[in-house]
Every structure is written in C-alpha cells, then in structure tokens.
C-alpha cells in the first residue's frame, strides 16, 4: 500500500480516481523529490475543469478559451500533447514520474480522439486543422505533422476520459510525432498563458524558461478529457497541464549574473583534516556528505509569489488543499517561510499550503543534511534502449533491448512510428529473450511468442509505417527486438537544409500493461526510448546546375562537330586564302623581330614550328582535298597559302578549318 502510494503522485491519483467536481474548479500542485542528492525532480500539475454545457456554449472560465475553441473546431473529444527534452536516467533516478503517462518522446508528440463522422477524409481534415491551430497556439512546428508522421495505434493508447457515448458517435485515435522539434522557451510561454494565473501567482511563478530548459530532463504535457460521472450528473471537461523537470542542483543554483563556475573562496572550503599532509597552508577539500543544501528560490531563481487559490473553498472539505508536497525522509530539516505545513500520516511526504496573500513571497529551503537523504527510488517497470545497427548507406537494422528487472512476467505493447524513407523488412523481425542471470553469452536465446502484431506499411511520401507488437517479457530477462531495414533515396527537394545531420526517428513507445495490480487500466505505465538519428545518403546539392552545364556542353560539342563535319569543306593548308588578319599578324611579327634585333631568329623559328604543325594537320585534311580542288577556288587559296602559314601557323587544325571561305 505504501509503495503504491509513493508510486502514484498524489494529485494524479486524486484526479484520476475522483473525477467529479460540481462547479468549475481549478487546482495546482507541485511535487518535489530530491533524487540521488544531486538532482531535484519537480512536477508541476495544473488541473482545471469546466462543465460540458459551459464548454459547448463557449463560456470559458478557467478552461483556456484558445484551446477550447481549437478542440471544438476540430471536433476532438480528447487531446494529449507532449513536449519533451532530455533523457530520464532510469539507472539512478528510478521509475518515471506519473508512470510515464504524462511524458512524451523527445520533441513533440500528439494524440487525439477525433469525431469520425464523415469518413476518413473528414477526420484527416479535422486532424490537419487541429495540428495547424495547435502549431499557432504553441509556437511549435506541429503543422509538420502531416500524413507521413501520423499513425493510428490500436493497442498502445486507451482513452482516459469517460464519455457518455451517444449512439452512432465514433471516435478515431490519431497519433503524430515530431522528433526533430526542439522544445524551448517559446513553447513554455503559451503553456503558461493557458493557466488562470499565467505564471504570475502561485506555483506557476516558479516556471521560468531559463531554468526549465536548462534541466537535464523536462517534459510538458497538456491533456484534455471528458469526465462523465456514473450518475446522471453533468459531464465535465478537464484540462490537465503538467510540467516535469529534473534539475541539476549545482547547475541551477549558479547565480544568474555570474553563471561561470568558479572555485570557492578558501575560507568556505571544508578541509579533510584526516589527510597526513593537512596543514596550515594545504587543504584537501572534504567530499561533501549527505544531501545538498537547496531552496526553491535558489533553484528556480525566484520564490513562489502569492498563491493561486481560485476554487471557492467549502469549509467542509478543506483537506487536501495544499500546493506543494515534498518527499524527504522525516528526519530532514525543512525550513518553510510563509507557508502552512503538515505531514502525511506516514511521515513521508510533507505538505505545504501557500498563504492567501497576493504578494507574499514563500520559500522552502533545506539546509545541508549529513544523513544521506536519498531514499531508494522505486525501480522502473522496464529498462529500454534502442539503437540503429549496421553500416553503409543502403541498409541498416533496428535493435531494441528491453530488460525486465522484476521477478514477474510483464506483458507489453511496443509501438514504433517509422518514416517512409526507412523501409523495414518485417520478415526479419525477431524477438527473443535471455535471462539476466545467464552467464553463458553463447547460449542460444529463446524466441518470444508474439501475441499480436499490428503493422501498417508505409506509402512513399504519404504514410508512415506503424509497427505495434504485443508480447510478454519473462521474469528477470532481457528481450531483444531486431529487424532490418532499407534506406530510401530522397528527392533532391525533400532534404532539409541540414541534410547531413541525419533524420530523426521518433521514440518507440512501450506500454507496460497493469504492472500495479488492482488499478486496472490506470495501472499501466509507459516508457519511451530515446529518439534515433538516421543518416541517409545525401547528394551533392550543387548537382542540378552542374548537370545542366555539363549536359549542355556535351550536347553542344556533339552537335557542333557533327554539324561542322556535314557542312564544312576540308582543304590543304597550302590552299588557305590569306585573310585580312593574317597580314596584320605577319607585319606585327616582323616588327617585333626588328625590335628585338638579335633575337630575329626566334620569330622565324616559331613560324617554322607552326608550319610543321600545319603540315601535320593538313595530312588529315587530305581526304577533303579532292572536293576543294574541284571547287575552282583552290588555286586562289594555294597562291596565298604560304603567307597564311606564316601568319596563322599556331595550330594546324585551326588553319585547316579556317580555309573554307
């Protein structure tokens, strides 16, 4: 019981299990867990609800109007949007917060249930309207989620909402990912704008782009779902916004005006006096023991400003109205300023409530603790990694490793969205397992029985590949999933500006079914692998112009020679008529020779060499001689031939060609 309580974050559990609240309601909550002494996990949670009638009538109060209008326009009944950055370090940080249900793969991930009325085309149009308007709302490139990035998962996602289904209304689930989107401050600002207090009061005042995007891991999520109570009470629409970050304490506590790490002044360093060389002038710094000292205002750059208590408080149900919860061992000292605090019954979680004053600045600070504060974090359901194998520009392979550390078997669903230019060979899909304890690496791995496979092949340039596999991982064993693929060659215009960087392949989504017993569907947890970078063969991008020039030259050359062969007359060098230019050149040469005086020999020598060349060229023109002689003009050409040789004797061939006038 204790474990399950710790695993499930209080608000998530609360809102998931008790969804009925009569009036428009808003609450927010921040959960803090120091992880392994150096990292701090902070999970922000903002939930607002509105009644379905007000939503339909477009009367918005705490539910953001911009989002509501988008959902109504695109007729989406349930929406899940994720922005993620960084990697969750499972080895040291343990299980993922909120069972991984509120995080996405690197980049942007979006899935929504859309009214299926009007057939596939209408749904696709609504989906496109949805991604385009969300793109504008969140300043993200969501509009690039087109058909090539959209899939329709069957097993991986279940609707979180409970809608009272009317006859004939069918919802269609569409899922799109954008792995190459870099999540940044411009996405956080619209995220905060959706909140009623807009980051001006309450815990949202801690969310500052400088700190959030400096984190080792961060994810933002927006989830909209309808909640219909079992009774005849009115349905509600709930929007839950979460922002989870893992901050490096040392890094985030650097002063903003001086972010360069510097050595501490010697007076502040604690020396290890146990060292034999310790003396008055030497100091061996003592390794810091226990948990680091930190406070909210230092980690987030500012204290909490005021509070955002909007719901009318009924005195009868005043419990569970806290803003901040902190998970530290009970013996730790925590100094809270301007906050009411209380402890949960099992002394594990401290709860704080911000004061009602609008301008009050509240802070939490933990002094340096000598007792090692890190409690054992719960183990994740699975450890998952994924790589691309192989070499070369043509083929490759996908290799995913899933390790089950638990002594019980787990049923999972493995979902992959592959772009069309990565073509998997599904016949090479192999899933086999090996027990973790097996020492002998040469032992043959055992094939895993695949319970279900849903596979949608890609269509070039219009549809993505979807692979959805369901199988069971035996206890304490490692499953390897491999398949080969082929890389497609893209068209010249399809490459992005940074083509040599490679193409991002979206994270695989792993759904672990019901690892926590007794919670049913809600007990499922999700794990996402890191996204991959696929190098594709990239062409030389100046190619088209080179091709134009080269082909033009070749064609012109070919045409020119054939044309000249056909229409030109070939005659002997001796028959070349004297052109007007030839006399000029000869005179200049003679002049030059006179000028140089003693070097007159040179001019003659050059002329002689030219003559030899001319004679050689004339040999090839001999065949044409008969033609030329018959023409009657040949005699005239012959008379002037000697002069022409002196004048133009640079290249025999040119001579021959020039003679045909």
């Amino acid at each position, binding site marked *: 019981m204790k474990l399950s309580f710790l695993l499930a974050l209080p608000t998530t559990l609360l809102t998931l299990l008790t969804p009925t609240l009569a009036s428009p309601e808003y609450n927010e909550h921040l959960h803090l867990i120091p992880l392994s002494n150096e990292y701090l996990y902070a999970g922000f949670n903002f939930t607002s609800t509105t009644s379905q009638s007000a939503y339909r009538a477009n009367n918005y109060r705490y539910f953001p109007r911009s989002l509501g209008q988008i959902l109504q326009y695109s007729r989406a009944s349930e929406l899940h949007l994720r922005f993620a950055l960084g990697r969750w370090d499972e080895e040291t940080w343990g299980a993922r917060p909120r069972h991984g249900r509120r995080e996405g793969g690197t980049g942007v991930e979006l899935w929504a249930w859309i009214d299926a009325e009007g057939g596939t085309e209408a749904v696709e149009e609504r989906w496109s309207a949805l991604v385009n308007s969300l793109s504008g709302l969140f300043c993200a490139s969501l509009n690039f989620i087109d058909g090539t990035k959209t899939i329709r998962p069957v097993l991986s996602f279940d609707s979180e909402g409970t809608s009272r289904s009317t006859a004939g209304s069918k919802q269609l689930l569409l899922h799109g990912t954008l792995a190459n989107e870099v999540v940044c401050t411009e996405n956080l600002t619209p995220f905060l704008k*959706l909140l*009623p207090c807009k980051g001006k009061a309450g815990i949202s005042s801690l969310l500052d782009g400088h700190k959030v995007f400096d984190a080792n891991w961060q994810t933002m999520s927006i989830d909209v779902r309808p909640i219909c109570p079992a009774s005849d009470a009115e349905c509600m629409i709930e929007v839950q916004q979460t922002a989870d970050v893992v901050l490096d304490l040392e890094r985030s506590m650097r002063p903003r005006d001086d972010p360069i790490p510097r050595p501490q002044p010697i007076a502040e360093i604690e020396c290890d006096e146990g060292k034999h060389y310790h003396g008055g002038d030497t100091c061996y710094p003592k390794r810091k023991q226990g948990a680091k000292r930190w406070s909210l205002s230092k980690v987030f750059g500012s204290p909490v400003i005021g509070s955002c208590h909007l719901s009318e408080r009924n005195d009868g149900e005043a419990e569970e109205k806290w803003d901040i919860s902190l998970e530290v061992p009970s013996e730790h000292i925590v100094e809270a300023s301007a906050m009411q605090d209380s402890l949960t019954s099992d002394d594990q979680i401290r709860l704080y409530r911000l004061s009602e004053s*609008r301008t009050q600045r509240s802070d939490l600070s933990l002094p340096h603790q000598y007792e090692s504060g890190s409690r054992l974090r719960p183990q994740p359901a699975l450890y998952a990694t994924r790589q691309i194998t192989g070499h070369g520009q043509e083929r490759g392979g996908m290799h995913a490793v899933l390790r089950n550390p638990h002594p019980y078997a787990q049923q999972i669903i493995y979902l992959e969205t592959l772009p069309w230019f990565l073509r998997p060979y599904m016949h090479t899909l192999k899933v086999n397992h090996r027990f973790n304890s097996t020492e002998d690496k040469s032992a043959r791995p055992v094939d895993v029985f695949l319970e279900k496979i849903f596979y949608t092949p890609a269509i070039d340039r219009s549809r993505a590949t979807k692979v959805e596999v369901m199988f069971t991982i035996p206890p304490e064993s490692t499953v390897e999933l491999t398949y080969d693929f082929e890389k497609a060659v893209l068209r010249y215009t399809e490459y992005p500006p940074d083509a040599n960087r490679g193409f991002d392949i979206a994270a695989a989504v792993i759904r672990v079914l019901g690892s926590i017993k007794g919670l049913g569907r809600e007990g499922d947890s999700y794990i996402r692998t890191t996204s991959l970078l696929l190098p594709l063969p990239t062409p030389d991008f100046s190619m088209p112009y080179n091709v134009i020039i080269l082909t033009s030259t070749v064609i012109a050359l070919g045409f020119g020679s054939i*044309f000249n062969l056909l229409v030109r007359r070939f005659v002997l060098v001796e028959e070349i008529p004297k052109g007007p230019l030839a006399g000029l050149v000869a005179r200049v040469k003679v002049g030059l020779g006179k000028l140089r005086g003693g070097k007159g020999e040179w001019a003659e020598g050059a002329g002689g060499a030219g003559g030899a060349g001319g004679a050689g060229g004339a040999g090839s023109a001999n065949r044409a001689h008969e033609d030329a002689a018959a023409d009657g003009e040949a005699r005239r050409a012959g008379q002037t031939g000697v002069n022409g040789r002196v004048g133009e004797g640079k290249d025999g061939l040119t001579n021959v060609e020039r003679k045909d006038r």
Partner: protein
Amino acid sequence: MGWTRRWIIIAFWVVVACLGLPYWIWTTSIHRSHLPLGMMNSWAEGKACQMSYPLHIRLSAPDLGEQAGSLLAEGVMRRMNELTDLQLYTFKLSYNDSLPTSTERDWDLLVLLSEEQNTNPEASLRSWAPVLDVRYDPNSDTNTLATFISQEVRTVFEYEHESLTYLLNDTPYATGKDTTSSLEGKTRLDARTTRAFKYASMYHLTFSLFTSSASPSSWDVDEALNKYITPLLQPLSKISKFTINTQVQLHASFSPSIAGPMHDATSGKWLLQKTDLSGFVNAAEWPLSPSIGAGPTINFVLYVPSVEQSPLEIAETGGTSWLVPQWGGVQILNPSDMQSATLSAGDLEQVMLTFADHLTALVGLPPSPQSLALRLSSLTRERATSLILSASSTLGALARLTLKLTSISIPDSVAKSVDETIARLDQACLDLREGRFDSALSNARIANDEAERAFFEPSMVGQVYFPDEHKVAVYVPLLGPMAVPLVMAALKELRKLRAAKLKSA
C-alpha cells in the same frame, strides 16, 4: 555541289525553327488563362453598372378614402422624385387601405396616417418596425399634407443618402455632382467607416473579463448576454451571422509601453491618460487570439481594476469606456462591492448596454434614423454598394496586374473566379436596381469573395520568382554553343550565294 551543303543547312534550320523552338517555347511557357479584361475594366471604371436605389414606400390611411389616398400618394411621389438632394433614389409610392398583416413585406417604409383633430401634422418613427406614424388634422389641405409627408420621408433617408454619396465619391461610380454637404459631415462619415469592420458574413464576438487581481473570477455572463445582447443580434443576423464566446482572465497586467493609471489625490481616483488608451489592451499577454473559422473577431473587454487602483477613470472626461476601431470595445468597471468574487447580471447591465452600443458602431450600423429596421435596411444598401465597389476595384487591379506582369501565370481557377465575380456583380447590380437589397447584398458578398480569391491566388505569386532572365541564364549554356555554328554557317552560305549571284550577273 554547293547545293548539297545548302540543303543540309536549310534542313538544320527547318528542324530548329519548326520543331526545336516551338517545343522549347511550349515546355518553358507559363500557363495564362484568358481573362475577360474588357469586362473587368468596364466594372473597374464604373461603366457596367449605374447605381440607383428604388425605394418602395407604402401609404396607409384607414380614415382616408381610396381615391384621396391614391391622390395623396401621387402627390408625395411627385414631390419626392423632384427632390434634387436625393437623386440616388427613385421613390415609388403606393396606397393601400388595409393594414399589412403578412410578415413578408415588399415595401421599404410604411407611412401610417391617422387622424387627430386640431393638430399640426406630426410624424414619429417606430423604433423597431420600419413604420412612420403621421398624425394629421382631417381638415387640412392634401397638398400641405403631401408636402409634410415628403419632408418627413426625406429626413428619414437623408443621412443614408449622404453616406451612400460619400461611398460613391472618388470612385468611378460617382454621379458627378458632389452632394456631400459639409466638411463636418464628411469627417463624421469618415470616422464611421474607419471604425466599422469590413463586411463579413460571420462575426465572432468575444466577451472577456479581465481582472487585474484574482477576483472577481466569475461573471453571470450568460444571463447578461441573453438579456442585453441577443435581442440586438436577432435583427442583425439578417445581415451577418454571429457566434459568441466568453472568457475570464485573471492577473491581467498593463503593457509596459503605457504609463499606467496615475493617482489623483484631490478626487481620490485613479486616472488613465488619453494617450494610454490605445495601448491599454496588452496584446502581448492578454489571450485575445482571434476565433477559429472564417470571419473577423470583435473583442469586448471588461476590465476590473484591483482594489488598490479603483476607482479607475479616463482623465479629463471621466469616462470608463472607449471603442477601438475595427477591433472592439473596452469598458472599465469599478464594482461597488470590490470583494465580491462574482459579477451578477445586474452589475453587468450597464456594461452590456455599452457593448451593445459599441457593437452597432463596429458592424457599421448608421446612427440615424431612429428606427432599427430602417437602419438595418440602410446598412444592407450601404454594404451591398461598398462590396460592389470593392469587388470591381479588385477586378480592375487584377486586370492591371496581369497586363503589367507578363511573366506570372494565370491559373484556370483565377479565370473561373473572375467569371463568377462578373456574373455575381451583374446579378447584384440588377438586384439593386430592382429593389431586392438582401439578394443584392448576398450576391455582392460572393462577388467580393471571389474577386479577392482570384487576386490573392497563391500560385500566381510563385511564378514571379522565375522571370525570363532566369530562364535565359539556364538555357544559354545549351543554346549558345548550338546557335553559333548554325548562324555562322547560314551567314557564310548567304554571303556565298550573293557573291555567286554578283558573279553571274
């Protein structure tokens, strides 16, 4: 022997001229659909349509006889059509004894005469229906009565005529004579047109409550809207459709670009400078994004200052509301009970009435005459006119553009849109001349939409980036080296031919 060579060269030239060049031109040419440029220009120059507005006025007098009534109607009609300052209109008066019962009406104004002893004739407009009530003394002269009625009807349509003339002014459709009375009237009409939104068939109304602190955080907006706004939207929906959405936004702060309210110690009030009004709406932070879907969004902002900064007023005038042209209206509310978390419908009454006032100005409803129905039909005529004007000027611009930029392509869709525009314009003009103003408006709207679509066709713009110079640059490496031997050979051969001819001669 010389002829073999000539034949070869001629053959080359024939292939190049008859096959090569046409093929090259055909493969690199831009598709330009045929546009009816003449028609487009005639619309742009105002030759295709003569604006005139026939108005049908019905006279009804239960106490007057059939004959006397018809006589009176004729007298009024003659006087009306003789008026020189309402020359855009042609009046048609008919007399009918029976009071109209059916909801369908075929008149623009009903003049209802009733007898009243020993009074000077007096007239009043009903505020909702297009009815002019005239009370007269049964003993009075018919001529005087006719003059009186024509004067009254004239005042009803005077303002509309002025604004129609203003619309037509400076366009090719102008009737030649500038009848706009005064500079003052012109500025007034100028202000009205700049304030109002461009006509759209759908407007989105967004009512937002901005609170500078965390309370009040809710308002009884549904009830207030039903009470004060919906009754106005109902008649307006004949011209445009409206959607309504509302939102509440807390912690709304002023933009840093304005000075903000100053405390005035003498009156104990916070005063907002007039220069700050334009920057009052913090566009960067207040979520006033336009609604999705076709049509513009009209914003109505209700701002509740914090307890520390109230009461908040505009300096000098002491007002609390203002209108932002072509955007919406802003109202500051200093509630009597600052601590209350909810604004009731009663609190919102004054606010909603102000917003209703803003709304009429923003959709362009003329301020006079008094009757809403008359104002609406007057708006219909004005909108239809301005849409026809704008569609025809767009057509003219498109015609000039296609003539000027010879390298842009004209897809078939543009030609289709232009044809549709012209057909709709013709229809709208005909409707206008025959007094079917509603139909004229809808046709003019479609015409305008089509004209805009044709003008802003995205595929036309793309071609501009591949001008002829670019084409030459790409093809010169191919065509240049090929053309030189061809031309040289031809020249040489020609020269030889001439020499041979001279020799033989």
